[in-house]
Each structure stands twice: as C-alpha cells, then as structure tokens.
C-alpha cells in the first residue's frame, strides 16, 4: 500500500516489478543450474563457479557491481526511449561511440588537461553517444522515420567505422590487443577498493536512477513523456510539445549510452578495445524489460545480468561449461520475463474446465 504522502497522480495501483524481478532471478538460477548439469562434465564445479565464485569474496562482488554500472546506464537509456514509445535498438553503437570518444579525449587530452582529461573524456563520451542517436532522432522529427529501424542501421554503420578506426589509425601498435593506447592512470576513475575494479560509476548510476524515477513519477515533463509514449495523438491534442518528445528522448538515451561507453573506458578497461560494447545493447533491453521500464529497478536488473556474465565467465574458466552459456541464459531470461501474455494463457489453461459445447 502506498502511503498517501508518497502518492502521485500517476499511480495506477500495485507495481508488478518486484514479481518480475523475482521471476527473472528464479529463472536465471534454474537455467544456470540446468546448464551446468546438462552441458558440463563436472557439474558440481560448474555450479560452484556459477553460483559461489562471483560471491566468494568482497573483491568479486565489487567487480560485479562495477560491471553492472555501464549496463544499468544503457538500460536506463532504453527506458527513456521505451517510455516515449520509441524502440531504439542502436544502443551498442552509441555506447561504442562513447567509448572511442572518451578514449581519444582521455588519451590526447591528458597532455593539455592532466587529470582534467577524465572530465573531458566523460563529456566527449556523452556527446558522441548523443551524436550517434541524433541521426535517428532527426529522422523521426523531420521525416517521421521509424526509430526502430533507423537506430539500428545508423548504429551498425558506426560500429564498422569505429572497428576500423580502433584497428587502424588509432591502434596502439605496441601490443597484440586491438585497442587504442591505454590512458594514463591519473586520467582513469580512481579505484575505490583495490584490488577490486570498483569506481565511482555504480554511485553515478544510483544517482541517475533516482533522478530518472523522480523525473517520470514526480515531474510534469515526465508525465507528458509517459502520456506521449502511450498515446501520441492524445498528447498532441492536450497541447504537449510532441515535436520535442519525438526526438529528445532518443538523444537523451544516446547520451546515457555514451556515458556508459565512457565509464567502461575510464573504469576497468582503461582504453577503447575493438568490440568492447558487443552485446551491451541487447543486454540493456533485457535489463530494461526485467526492470519493467522502472528506473528504480534498473540497478537490480543490471546486477542480475552482471552476475550471469560473471558467473558464466567463472564457470568457463573453472570448469568445461561453454562460455556462451551465459548469453543463452540471458536470452532465455528475457524471453520468460517478456512473455507475460503466455503466462496469462498458461494460467487460463490451468484454470480451464471442460467447455460443454452447446448443441
């Protein structure tokens, strides 16, 4: 029950988000156990690696939390577009653009700015993500182009160009890794709890999730944003600025993806690596679905996906579980969580009593 003090005009009754999160966690755990039992020759080792290793010490847990931060930012970006009725699939390219821009600003800006290059890298990442998102956003605004298609086309184009840039003119030739030169340690985000990779990123995520929750639930603009997403014609007839709502959420989402890319560079990775954002777009959509498009549930949803990544990686190292098991489990979790109509059908089927056909 919501306290009258906390009630807003937007409340529509009990939220299904906790239930959705619980289903996602239970499904992920069951599938991970099943994968370990079915695919590994050493199921007990695989199970231990999946379920125990990521939580075996404080450092592992903090690494997982750090890993979840960029994913959470991307999921937040997805929610911003989903709630405006746009389905942007270009998150991966936006995050990748954020990464290369942050790496370039951090590396080349260090000579001029010193530690201030960190801030320059963050700003460059955000702007690069916004620039990539701006193309589908303007297509929507001026030509009515469908964001679903244009975002993924533009994103794929940028991914090819960035792959080429990192592997070609911007590559650090001193190592075997296809990556840009590593940033100076002073230009990276400080590690708060070495030897873990934890930085300030998860705290930034928490602040942004609280701010986004406040925006959607407690501001007039957030209410208009939601109404537009649910019925654009209604929003237009109520006199809302639908032209702005047709493009601004897409650009805002690009900024969040760009920030995610920048934080990956400034955190654990230390530079832009070819393919570093691979799969983050789809994982973010999955996390947004698990979170029920509620910003307040994003950190937990992102943490769940980070655990699946981390657990699958540990299991692949410590046992013979295929490394792609984590990806498969993530896909199945998304399928289960997003197939609510099927659950309704299952429930109806279970309730069903024989229909006696009238003659």
């Amino acid at each position: 029950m919501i306290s009258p003090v906390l009630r807003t005009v937007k409340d529509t009754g009990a939220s299904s988000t906790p239930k959705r999160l619980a289903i996602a966690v239970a499904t992920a755990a069951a599938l991970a156990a099943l994968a370990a039992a079915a695919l590994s020759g050493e199921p007990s080792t695989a199970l231990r690696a999946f379920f125990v290793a990521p939580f075996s010490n404080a450092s592992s847990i903090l690494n997982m939390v750090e890993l979840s931060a960029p994913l959470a930012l991307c999921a937040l970006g997805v929610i911003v577009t989903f709630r405006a009725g746009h389905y942007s699939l270009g998150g991966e390219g936006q995050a990748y653009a954020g990464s290369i821009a942050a790496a370039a600003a951090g590396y080349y800006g260090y000579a001029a700015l010193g530690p201030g290059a960190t801030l320059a890298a963050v700003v460059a990442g955000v702007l690069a993500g916004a620039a990539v998102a701006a193309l589908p956003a303007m297509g929507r605004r001026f030509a009515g182009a469908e964001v679903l298609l244009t975002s993924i086309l533009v994103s794929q184009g940028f991914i090819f160009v960035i792959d080429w840039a990192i592997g070609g003119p911007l590559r650090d030739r001193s190592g075997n890794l296809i990556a840009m030169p590593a940033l100076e340690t002073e230009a990276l985000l400080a590690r708060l709890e070495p030897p873990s990779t934890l930085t300030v990123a998860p705290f930034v995520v928490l602040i942004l999730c609280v701010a986004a929750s406040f925006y959607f639930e407690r501001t007039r603009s957030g209410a208009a944003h939601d109404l537009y997403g649910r019925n654009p014609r209604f929003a237009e007839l109520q006199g809302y600025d639908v032209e702005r709502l047709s493009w601004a959420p897409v650009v805002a989402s690009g900024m969040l993806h760009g920030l995610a890319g920048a934080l990956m560079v400034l955190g654990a990775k230390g530079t832009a690596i070819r393919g570093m954002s691979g799969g983050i777009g789809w994982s973010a959509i999955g996390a947004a679905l698990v979170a029920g498009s509620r910003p307040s549930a994003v950190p937990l949803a992102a943490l769940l996906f980070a655990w699946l990544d981390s657990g699958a990686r540990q299991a692949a190292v410590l046992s013979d579980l295929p490394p792609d098991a984590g990806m498969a489990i993530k896909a199945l979790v998304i399928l289960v969580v997003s197939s609510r109509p099927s659950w309704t059908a299952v429930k109806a089927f279970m309730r069903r009593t024989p229909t006696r056909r009238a003659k």
Partner: protein
Amino acid sequence: MQLATLTSIRKYYPSTNALAVDGADFSLERGEVHALVGENGAGKSTLAKILCGFESPDSGTVAIRGSPVSFSSHRDAEKAGIGFVPQYSMLAPGLSAADNVALGHEPRFLGVFSDRRRVAYDFSLLADRYGFSVNPDAIVSTLSASGRREVEILRALARGGGVLVLDEPTSILGERETEALFALIRRLKSAGAGIVYISHRAKEILDLADRISVMRAGRVERTIRPDDTDECGLADLIVRSSSCAAGTDSGSTPGKPGLTLRSVTLSRRGSDSLDGADLVVRKGEVVAVVALGGNGLDALEDVAAGVVGPDSGDVLVLGKDIHSYPPRILRSGVMAYIPTDREGRGLCAKASVALNAIAGRLRGYSFADFALGRAPLADADALLASFDVKNGGRRRVDTLSGGNRQRVVAARELDGPADVVVAANPTQGLDRSSRAALLSRLAEMRDEGSAVLLLSSDPEDASELADRSFVLYRGRLKALSGPGSDDSAIAAALTGVEP
C-alpha cells in the same frame, strides 16, 4: 427455450477493489430482445463480457441452451454461438474491413495459403445479407466511427449464431444506420436468435425490447416488460433521480464569432468529405451539426478541432487561423474538445484516471506542487466528482466502464472557461442523468460566453441544446430553420430529401 442463463454471477476486481457484479441473475429466451439497462458502472458491460467469455465469473453459473459452460476465452463463446459487439472498437485498425471480420477464422487455400478473394467474397455476402454497405477493402482506420461499428456488427454476425450481445450499439450511429440495425435485430429475432441489448436510450429500448432488466450496483434489480412503463418511467428506473428534464434555452445573445469555417473543403476521404462548408459559431450560442455516418461529420470534426488542415478554405478561431495557435495555447482555455474517438483521442488508456483528468492542466502546476502530488490529486478528485466518477483516481482508465470513460473526458474538457467548445458525439455511452448533466454543462458554458459546436449523429442532442442546427449531407451543410427543428424536418434533411 432459454438460450442463455446466468445465475448468481459475481465478479470482483482485486486490482481496483471493485465488485463489478454482485450475484446477478439474467436469462435470454429464444426469439427475444432482452435489454440490459442501468447507470454507468452498474455492471452491465461486465455481465455481458462474462456471457461472451471475455471475463470469468468468481462464482455463479453460465448455461447455454440449458448446459452449464465455462468459457476460457471469447473464442469458446463464439463456438457456442455467441457474438459480441463492444461499446468501443476492438478492431485491428491497419487491416481491411473484410480482414477484420475474417480475423482468426481466415479461409485457407489448400489448407495453407490465405484465400484473400474468399475473405472479400464472404464479407460482401454477409454485408449484403444484412443490408450494410461497407467496402470490404476499406482500411478500418480510414472508416468513420459508424463504419467501424458496422464492421464490428458484421464480425459478431459472422461468428455468432443464436445469441448476439450488443453493447451500446447505436451510441455513435446515425439515424439511417440505427434503423438498419433495428431492422436487422427484428429479422434475427424472428429467425429465433436471442439478443442482449445494452443501452441508455429509453426510447429505443421501449421500441425494441421484449424484456428489460435494470441493473444497479452489480445486481439485476428488476425485470419488466416494455408495456409496464413509459419513457420517463424507464428513465427513472435507470437513474433513481428523475432525469426527464427538458432542454435548456439560451438566455444570452450571440456575440462575436468564436469558430468560423469559410468555404472549407476536405476531399480524398471518400464519402467522409467536406464540400465548401461555411459555418459561424458565435460566442454565447450552441450550433449543432447533425449527420448520418459517412456524410462528412468526422471530417468536420477534424477541421474544426484543428486535427487536420482543410484542402481549401479557412478555419478561424476568434478571427485567427486555427493553425496559427501553438497547440499549447489552443488547448489552454481557447478550445475545449470532446472527440468522437474517445479511446484514440480523448483518453490515454494505460494511464491513471487522475492523470487523464488533469492532463490538460499539467502546465498549470508548479514544480513543487506536482512533485508533492497533493494539488494534482485534489484537482483530479474535484474534476471527477463534478461528473460523478467514483473511486477513479488511481485506477487505469481502461478499467472503467465506457460511460465512466466518457465522463472523465467531459470532466477534463468542460472544466474551465473556453472560448470555443467542439463537442463531437459527447453523450455517447452516457446514461440519462450523465447525459443531462453534460448537456447542462454545455449550456452553462454557452451562457458564460463560449461558442459551442455540437457535432452529433443523434438529432435528439441537437433538438435539446442547439440554438441553431445544421444538417450535413454528402459533405454539404444545410441550415435548419430555428432552434429545436422538428424531427421529421431533420430526418428529411439527413437523408437529402428536399422539402
């Protein structure tokens, strides 16, 4: 023989804490029209949905031709010969009329390929048999509201056999379509079908029904024969407080033009076009335009509300081109708009009732007021109370009955002063008392100086409220002489008969 029997039906919605049906009993005989009446929210639509398999009762039994049944979906009900015409459109807007009727039961060529020619052929046969004239290839989103209703009816007839449930079927139909529907109902009845007819219109119920069941607070309170009552008596049974009020007359003199249409033409919309429409609605008057479906009423609504621009001619609000107003300004006290398409334009179905109620005044709140939530909630409560929408605030608006949804739209749009009011079929789905309250509010706004344009398929709305009336026939406006023109004159003009 009893075609359908519902015994002690109870339905509770935990999510909204609403007991929609509370031990209702209802039966339908072969060859009978059984009307189900009651105030908005009395439980009529829920009971009908239970009969049609859209909802499962918490307790009670449903029997078809004497055999108890338990429908888990509407498809089961269709198999048992029950057709349903919903109050608001449940059609797929991007598909053609014929595809919508065939949806889920598409004829197959060699058991695999969709047989589109057969779909169109079957549709044409069905439409011809029942006297409808909808183009099978017309995309549903391009049809007028009454055209969509005809497709709904054909869809129900294609599936249903013995039992047809009609929920407010005439709320947006013109006189001609209504007459066609009544003739159809009588034909079906004489062929042995049973018809459940949900409506608020006392006159048509008395004309059509063999029995009338009155619902109140989820129960069937009384079942009577039409001979046992008259129009006013039935209205009093539906709504406890008497609602047989006379229309209101304007006490003021019309002032400056509020809304002006000058030689407005809107073509390329098939029969729903406008052909050189000239109309001036002055401040302090109600001008009604009545039309049968497909004669340009939807087109007139679109241009008058500024939803589309005319191909030629001018639409002026307070002497300025309507499109020169930024949408925000137009909707802030300049124009109030009640659309015919309530679900698509009038409401945001997935948002709360409270947010729908205050959607038009969001900009009026300070940042702090909206964040704290008290002022918007209090405003929403006050607005909803003004049209007697109870327990609505936090519910999603699509959990309300059709009449209550219409009240939410009216509460929002007819709230403060407005220079111009465009009200298109504003009484659709409303019971008599709500209808009287709405018409009285429109009259009040006129007296306060608003220019009110009433667009309706129901001549009764026009005769009760309008100071001047027009008929729209094949896209052309024709003035009727004086307020309260008699019904035969309106009927003649509606069908293009010259005096």
